[in-house]
């Protein structure tokens, strides 16, 4: 065992154990770590956005050599966001939000339309008969049939009765399989996060793990 001599690693290890103590029960050590985390995150994000975006993309270009005077617009709109702190003037922030809500929905409409809607339908145009490969044929039928059955399940404009109801039921079965698969992958994700923390404690702090 080679205990770390780095003060930072010791503080990190103690904070890790403080947060993990929540598993026993909620306690002041956990609450301290939680509030410390929120404070550090908020302070860090503010400074990061200033030096990563506001300074290089706005201030340097507006007040530097060969200034781009059009950038006075985002400067004013950005400052107007802070009008939310003043009850009488908070309506001014709506102008800044209006620009955001003009740009992003438009990007998402075209992005989802092209990337998700058109391309996914294109990807579903599969051959229903693959010569010499019965497995591929069955799988393609499964893919297209499952897709249609699930889409029919999400069609709520007509009551799910008769043939429509039966197809929707098949769609539900496909959905359950996909939720089960997602659950399996989610389990893997959560456990790997714990593995990472345990590796830190064993390798970086206690020095009992050799990688």
């Amino acid at each position: 065992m080679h205990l770390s001599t780095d003060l930072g690693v010791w503080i990190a290890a103690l904070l890790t154990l403080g947060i993990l103590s929540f598993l026993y029960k909620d306690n002041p050590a956990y609450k301290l770590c939680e509030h410390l985390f929120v404070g550090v995150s908020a302070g860090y994000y503010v400074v990061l956005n200033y030096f990563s975006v506001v300074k290089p993309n706005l201030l340097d270009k507006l007040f530097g050599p060969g200034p781009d005077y059009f950038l006075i617009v985002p400067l004013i709109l950005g400052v107007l966001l802070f009008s939310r702190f003043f009850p009488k003037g908070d309506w001014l922030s709506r102008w800044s939000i209006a620009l955001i809500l003009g740009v992003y929905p438009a990007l998402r409409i075209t992005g989802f339309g092209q990337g998700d809607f058109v391309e996914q339908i294109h990807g579903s145009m599969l051959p229903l008969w693959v010569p010499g490969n019965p497995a591929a044929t069955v799988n393609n039928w499964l893919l297209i049939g499952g897709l249609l059955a699930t889409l029919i399940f999400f069609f709520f404009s007509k009551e799910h009765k008769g043939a429509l109801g039966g197809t929707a039921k098949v769609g539900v079965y496909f959905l359950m399989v996909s939720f089960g698969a997602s659950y399996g992958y989610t389990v893997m994700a959560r456990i790997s996060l714990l593995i990472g923390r345990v590796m830190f404690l064993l390798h970086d702090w206690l020095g009992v793990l050799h990688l």
Partner: protein
Amino acid sequence: MGFVTWLAKLDRRWIFLAMGLLVLGPLIRPLSLPLTVSRPVQGFVNAIDAVPHGSTVLMSCDYDPASIPEMVPMTRTAFRHLLSRDCRVVITCLWAGGSGLIDSVLTEGAREFPSKSYGQDWVNLGYKSGNEAVMVVMGQGIINAFPRDFRGNACETLPIMRSVRNYSSFPLLVNISAGYPGTKEWVQQVQARFHLPMVAGVTAVSAPEYYPYLQAGQLQGLLGGMAGAAEYETLVKAPGLATRGMDAQSLAHIFIALMILLGNLAALPQRSSGGKS
């Protein structure tokens, strides 16, 4: 007290303890279980291997420290893979909490290639807020979105950026992402709009939702979670943290499966008494 009754009354903290021990054990005493490489991971490697030597590749690392065990092994291995093929790499980050971590990972990875220099063979452009808007602005000009790199240098002065204009300057996009903004947005805004070939490494939570993109050819390869990272390390013969973690992952999965079965066993008496009344 019967076994089933004992199960029904089990304090969850015993479950927490068992989980902790099952993760700890294999890390201290590895089981060295063999890994099988899956097709999506093979596709990821093939796509990078198909990139001509000396090309400049765009790599977007969109994650923060919460996803270190899954994302860092992927980033490290992909970065090494690209540098070993004499590719030049331009890295961006769209998550506020990730830029410091990613720079550390890249700097450490670059030390294994002393002949590769920062600014010439690789550059970290750092973080930019704006999500999809950044992706589309990069389509007109990478420097439009990133006038300076992570270290404060003006991008137009860096040798690697002289040959980079927009997405047409790259043969491939390697995206390592943990959520929003990430792979989905890159597919929608960049792959679909600018037709840039793309591979992705994602967290296991989001991996299932990207299989349709993989099947449709919008993604040429996909790494899903720590297992995907471990398979990638195996394929490029560079076992690392992900490979080391797979034994613990295996035992933990068996434990979860057992918990599902035991939980239903513990609930059986309640169901049968409910049925009788």
